[in-house]
């Protein structure tokens, strides 16, 4: 299943709704990067990049990129007022010390207790964990932003991850093309479904146990 940019932008926009005023936010590589362009009007947000920057802004205009002003995903960004540069030990110091309010990370699999797997596909790809372990384990709130199912249609939200973990019981919320799911102490709770998607569709695309909110919303 190939998913269009429209769907991805809607997912990113939904994730951006979780950004409250004043938050410090780190966006993972890939889909999460899109979140920056959807921050709701009037909310001040400080984006952190783990290579060593606090306070980056939107993508520069084409032709105005600075090769030395780059987020951790390798994409050109701009500098906001109050920004600072530092080395990567300090960047991860902020993360491990619990100073990040929110991170949005991609996922290969999410387990029903919030386990996250996103760095290794056994027998296929070993890209490495990069900074995902620190972010998943240490940010105050972790959103997994991912398509609901894998390319072959198999569920990515599972009772237990089968791929090696990035972090245990790390994810607080899962946002997919189909649904918004909260990780609660009692398990997964379906909070919202995407426009045009039924609760039944979400349930059948999910292999983890999934409770349904009394009154699920729509996004």
């Amino acid at each position, binding site marked *: 299943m190939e998913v269009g940019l429209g769907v991805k932008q809607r997912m990113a926009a939904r994730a951006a709704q979780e950004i409250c005023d004043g938050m410090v936010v780190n966006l993972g590589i890939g889909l999460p990067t899109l979140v920056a362009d959807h921050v709701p009007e009037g909310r001040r947000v400080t984006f952190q990049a783990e290579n060593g920057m606090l306070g980056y802004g939107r993508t520069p205009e084409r032709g105005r990129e600075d090769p030395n002003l780059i987020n951790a995903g390798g994409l050109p960004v701009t500098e906001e007022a*109050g920004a600072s540069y530092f080395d990567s030990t300090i960047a991860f110091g902020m993360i491990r010390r*619990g100073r990040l309010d929110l991170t949005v990370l991609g996922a290969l699999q999410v387990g029903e207790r919030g386990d996250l797997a996103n760095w290794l596909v056994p027998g296929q790809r070993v890209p490495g964990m990069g900074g995902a372990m620190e972010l998943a384990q240490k940010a*105050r709130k972790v959103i997994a932003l991912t398509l609901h199912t894998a390319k072959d249609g198999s569920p990515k939200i599972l009772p237990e991850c089968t791929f090696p973990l990035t972090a245990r019981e790390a994810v607080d919320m899962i946002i997919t093309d189909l649904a918004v799911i909260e990780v609660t102490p009692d398990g997964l709770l379906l909070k919202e479904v995407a426009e045009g998607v039924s609760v039944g569709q979400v349930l059948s695309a999910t292999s983890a146990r999934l409770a349904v909110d009394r009154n699920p919303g729509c996004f």
Partner: protein
Amino acid sequence: MSRADDAADPTALQTVAGPGKVALTLAAEPGKVAPLNRALEVFHDGMTLMFGGFGGVGTPPTLIRAILESGVRDLTLIGNDSGFPEVGVGPLIVNRRVSRLIVSHIGSNPVAGKQMTDGELRVEFSPQGTLAERIRAGGVGLGGILVDVGLDTIAGEGKQMLVLEDGVTYLVESALTAEVAIVHARKADRSGNLLFDKTARNFNPFVAMAGDFTIAEADEIVPVGELDPEEIVTPGIFVDMIVQSEGVGWKWAWE
């Protein structure tokens, strides 16, 4: 999902709060700048207080004076040294507000030495570089460090040791954090980005990271955007509150 007790509660964003227990609403103040009396609300008897400075240079004078006047006592102080009797954290010790010190030396404050000898003050010594790294380790969320300094001296006695896979033995030195950390900056912008002044930098940058709640006393407070992002030494994310410095009230030891 953070394992700390400050769970992912969006309402926590209404407060100025470090990763620890102290939380303080600052709705009335733009940015993190607060009057001195607001800063005093975070200090309490029996607390652990970490401070920047080296022989008093770079120790925030206005905060020290305010803490002294507030009357809080039974403090555990963590920092490089005990200052001079009238400089740095020295007055807190002279006025018996401190029950425990974690420092690298007390040689410049004979009162601290006397209180230690008299059993009034517990003092734990770390070699200076080890102490600095223990504080930094706390500041960047590590559990500790491995170091070989003092390994075969009494400074290593009773400490955990570890043999690395290459067969070399190290002392295990645990990370240090504190409920509140206080630092002295030359300049702060209102979001807490800090610059320091020459050798007054010393312990301040890593002490700023190691506080669960960090207060910067700044000689000058400027609007956000005025500091060069390349020059900022302490990123504002580590600073929870900024107070205006009233300057150094003490006479320097060399004067």
